[in-house]
Structures are given as C-alpha cells and as structure tokens.
C-alpha cells in the first residue's frame, strides 16, 4: 500500500464522519489556539512593560522606603523609611547628580463646578520633578521653590485629568477643591502617557510641603512625620552611576542609623526594574505555556479515545482488509495516518483560530498582543507530535487484531 493511497483511505474515513472528526479535533484546536494566544498576550505584556520601563529614563536612581512602619517612639530613632530631609541631604552632599526630587502621593476627592472625581492621585513633589521625570509644561507654569517653601496651595494638572475637570474651558487660574482644600491651578502638563503602570496624565502635582501639611491624615501625621514614599535622583551624564549609588547608600544608612544590610530603603535602577520584570514575565510565560501544553495533551487524549472507539467499531473492516492482503504494518500506518491527519488538521485550524483570536484580543480586548512566529511553529509541531504519540496505541491495537476474530466481530 503506497503512502498516497494510505492518505486517501484515511481522508475518506475521516470525512465519512465529519462531526465526530471535528469534535475529536476540537481538543487540539483549542490547545494550539491557546498556545498561540497565550504567548501573544505574554509577548504583548512584555513589550508594553519594556516600553514603559524605557520611559523611566536611563539615568534615574529610585530610592524607595521599605514598608517598616515603626511606633511613634521609634520614628526619630530611624528605620522609619525615607523622610523629606533626606532629599536635602542628597542634594547637598552627593556629587555627580543633576537633580533629585521626592514623590509622595495621596488619594483625594477633587471637585470643580459640578464635576466630582474620587481617588485622584495628588503627588507631592519638588521643582526638580519636572526635569527628573522628563515632563513638560503645556500651559501656565511649573511649581517653584517658593511655592514649596510657602506650601502654596497651587496645583499643576495632568492633561487627561484637566480635560475631565474642565472640558474645553481654560483651567489656568481656576480653583479646584481637593478634600475641601482650595487649590489654584497654575499649570498644565503635556501628555506623558503610561509609564511603568502609572498614568502620569491622570494625576496632579503640588508642592511636597503642602502634602505634608494638609494632606497627611492627622492620625498618621505624628508617626509618618514628613516621610516620603520615593526619592528620585537623576545622575549627571558624566558621573558614574555605581559611584552615586554607593555614596547615596552610605549617606542614607548613616542618616537613618542602619547598616547597609538592614537598610530601611531600597535603591534600584532601571536595569534592576527591567530584570525584575523580565523574570516575572518569564515565569508568567512559563506558566501559560504549561497551561497551553496541558490542553494540547488533553486534546491528544481525546484523539486517542476516539481512535480506540474507531478501531473497535471498524474491527470487521480491519479483518477484511487483512484477509485481502493488508499486513499488520499496513493497518498500523492507516490508523496512525488517521490520527496524524486529525492532529495536523486540528493544528492548522488551531493556528487559524489562535492567530485570529490573538488579533481580535489585540484589537477589541483591553490588552496588547504580539503574535510570535515561533509560537505557531512550536504549537503546530506539538500537535503533530501529539497525533503520533496518541495515535500509536490505537494503531497498535488495530494491527494486532487476529483476522479470524476480527472477521467474526459484530
């Protein structure tokens, strides 16, 4: 029996029971589509993360407080995390920096006219923030040192937030209320976009001293004091980054009276963040691959199941074919080819469904997808492998049938 005839026979047998063949393939279709879609989603996520991390700026050092809240008595003894004074110390004592600023956020309810917005981030910053975070003023002015010294009730709005509050009207000079404190809008920022999960355009920026004075819950005020969540340091282009990190670490450790090993702050750079994200997304991808792989496996078991039923159903046919000259090898290859055709066809339909699904997700879903060519090849080859592996047992069972018994089977 030559290969093309074997394929014809297998094809005829599959098409003679279309709905069953389709249902058998469904497992493989879903498995292959799942592999492609999941890899496209994780690749899309990675691409988004990579882009937003690149938006952080490569010369930035991030110093964050470790969340070890101490009791009131211990606050002054250090290990309470970063405080506003740390910023001044860094600015005056560390060489090789082009700017440094703080980031202390609080969530407020904002009102203007009839618009009322909940949970808006009010970010307490200093003048350097604009340059350090690579932002630009669109209209009006940015916060000044004087604003900060006086804890002036002024605010600069992100573009999206300004649009929601004021619509087409000009916000400059208008007063908005944030948790019942009146703030005067002095400037508007240009669009900055989503960076590392933060929407810079849907926040508002105000002097850090105002946040410390007015927007820290009174019950925490004593404990928190003038603590800040984050300090950003921009390293001068000509300075050595590692040197700046070392200086800063030593300075802060001394100020907080802690050892470097048990510091109450963490210093990281863009590279650190990229590495953390890369390992997170890698494990995310591994997990998804396992899920998809298991669904392919289940698809394979489905094929084996139906092929075993098919061998039993067609026992007489197998007996007759053997009687007229089919060797055990002919029978085995016939059933193997059938299983392989099911899995390849299922694999093909799965690729179509997976690519289509990933494109639809990317277009209409709230996620970005990047279709990886190697995921198509990988999943299609896996489907073929599944067909051979799970087709083997039924094919073996068919080939081993005794023609005498098979011919009498009913």
């Amino acid at each position, binding site marked *: *029996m*030559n290969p093309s*005839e074997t394929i014809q*026979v297998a094809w*005829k*047998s599959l098409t*003679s029971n279309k709905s069953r063949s389709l249902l058998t393939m469904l497992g493989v279709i879903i498995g292959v589509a799942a592999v492609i879609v999941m890899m496209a989603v994780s690749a899309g996520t990675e691409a988004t993360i990579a882009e937003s991390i690149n938006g952080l700026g490569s010369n930035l050092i991030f110093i964050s407080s470790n969340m070890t809240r101490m009791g009131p008595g211990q606050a002054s003894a250090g290990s309470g995390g970063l405080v506003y004074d740390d910023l001044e110390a860094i600015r005056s004592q560390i060489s090789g920096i082009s700017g440094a600023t703080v980031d202390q956020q609080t969530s407020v309810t904002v009102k203007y006219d009839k618009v009322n917005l909940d949970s808006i981030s009010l970010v307490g910053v200093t003048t350097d923030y604009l340059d350090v975070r690579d932002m630009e003023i669109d209209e009006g002015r940015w916060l000044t040192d004087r604003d900060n010294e006086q804890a002036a009730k002024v605010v600069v709005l992100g573009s999206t937030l300004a649009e929601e509050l004021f619509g087409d009207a000009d916000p400059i000079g208008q007063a908005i209320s944030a948790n019942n404190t009146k703030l005067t809008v002095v400037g508007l920022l240009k669009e900055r976009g989503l960076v590392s999960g933060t929407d810079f355009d849907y926040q508002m920026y105000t002097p850090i001293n105002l946040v410390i004075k007015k927007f820290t819950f009174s019950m925490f005020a004593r404990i928190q004091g003038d603590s800040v969540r984050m300090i950003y340091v921009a390293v001068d282009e000509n300075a050595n980054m590692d040197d700046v990190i070392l200086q800063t670490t030593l300075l802060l450790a001394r100020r907080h009276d802690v050892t470097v090993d048990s510091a109450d702050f963490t210093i990281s750079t863009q590279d650190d963040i990229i590495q953390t994200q890369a390992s997170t997304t890698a494990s995310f991808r591994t997990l998804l691959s396992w899920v998809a792989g298991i669904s392919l496996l289940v698809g394979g078991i489905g094929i084996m199941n139906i092929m075993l039923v098919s061998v039993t159903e067609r026992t*007489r*046919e197998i*007996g*007759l*074919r*053997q*009687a*007229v*000259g*089919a*060797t*055990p*090898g*002919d029978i085995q290859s016939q059933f193997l080819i059938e299983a392989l055709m099911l899995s390849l066809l299922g694999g093909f339909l799965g690729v179509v469904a997976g690519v289509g699904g990933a494109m639809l997700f990317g277009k209409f879903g709230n996620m970005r997808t990047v279709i990886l060519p190697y995921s198509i090849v990988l999943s299609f080859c896996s489907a073929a492998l599944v067909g051979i592996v799970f087709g083997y047992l039924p094919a073996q069972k068919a080939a081993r049938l005794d*023609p*005498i018994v098979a*011919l009498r089977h009913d």
Partner: protein
Amino acid sequence: MSETIIETIDLKKVYGMGETEVLALDGVSLHIESGEFVAIMGPSGSGKSTLLNLLACLDTPSDGHYLLAGEDVSDMSRAELAQVRNRKLGFVFQSYNLLPRLSALENVILPMMYQREERIPLHERNNLGMAALEQVGLTNRADHLPKQLSGGQQQRVAIARALINEPILILADEPTGNLDSRSSFEIIELLNHMHDRGRTIVMVTHEPDIAHYTQRILTIRDGKLDADRKNGQRPAVPVLQEQEGVL
C-alpha cells in the same frame, strides 16, 4: 495441466494451553488439484472452520505442513501470510464483508491496494474492477453502496472482489448461508460458472443440497477427515427465470 493447489500433510491445530488444550484439527492430509470444486462439510465443532482458516492462510498450523501451490506457508509470519492471501487467494464470506462506505466498484478493487509487487496503476484498476463486475453481472450497480444492494447482489460483488487479483484458489465460507434459496442458486450458479472457467474453489457449507453442486465432498468429523468422495451425480442448477445480468 493438473497441478496440485492444496497439499496438507498431517495438519494439526491445538487451541489453548496445558489442561484446557483442545485438539481442533487432528492430522488432516489432503490434496486438491487445480480446477477442482470441493465442498467441505461437517457438523459444527467438527473442525471444518479451523481447516478453512488454515487453508485460507488466516492461521498457522500447530503441527504438520500446508503447501499452497508447492509453497510451504506453515511457518510464515503474519505479514508474509497477508501477501500470500493477497496474491493467491480470493475470499467469499457468509456475511459478504463489504466495506459499508465504499461503492461496489471500490469494494471490488480493494485487494489491489495491498499488492506489493507488480502493482497495477490506479487508472487501470477501475477497468479491471468493471470487468470483474461484468462477470457477476453488476456493471450497472458499480456506484451503489452495499446497503443499496440486495443480499444476493452484495455476495456477487464479494465474488467479483475475490476474482480481482486472479487468485489460484477461491475460498468460500458458507457463501449462501445468509441468502434465500433463489439467491443461493444464483451464487452457486456463479461459482459453477467460475469453476467451468477453470477456477479452483473450496467451499465450506453445512447445507447438503448446496454441497451437492460440487464435484467432491470432504467431510470432517472430530478434527479428522472422515470421508472424501467424488460427487458423481451433480444435479443441474434449477433454471432461474429473469436472471437478468447474471452470466
């Protein structure tokens, strides 16, 4: 040009092992020459099916030898036996055993698919298949599926299939067992016609009146050859009316 087609020497077949051993065939030696039309009879359990399975190369003997046209097939592997069946044997079964999803013509040419040597090209197979269908008078049913054919017609398709590879021996296992008497006579007439054209036919039957149309009747009893007699007075097959197509 009489040539020995079947020669068995002390053929034995044992089923089971140890204490449950059953001797189904207990030393059968026989000769069947080319061109003979032989019936094998015997009560159920006599071993006649076992003998037919051995003669059909569907099974191998536990002991003894079977020479098919001079070739000893007693110790062949399953794959080798499959090729012997393909090249040398034609089968007619009680229950026709046509593949339900194939047309009459496709069923007839099925054995050609399994030829190893001297394979006949695809386009010629249909012509040969039609020629075989013509011999059984069913050219007008070539495209019908088995379920669209009567029992007698299905058995005629099966006979055409048995002829397709020009076998040296046709084995028929109760070929009229599922048929009414009218169709039975049609089938016997057809087999007789094949015999007249020089085919060697061995048929297992338990119906004496069917066996009587053959030349020679072998009777198997308790695994042994009990009687081997020439059938002198073969009755004429009743003339069948309206046998359109046949012969």
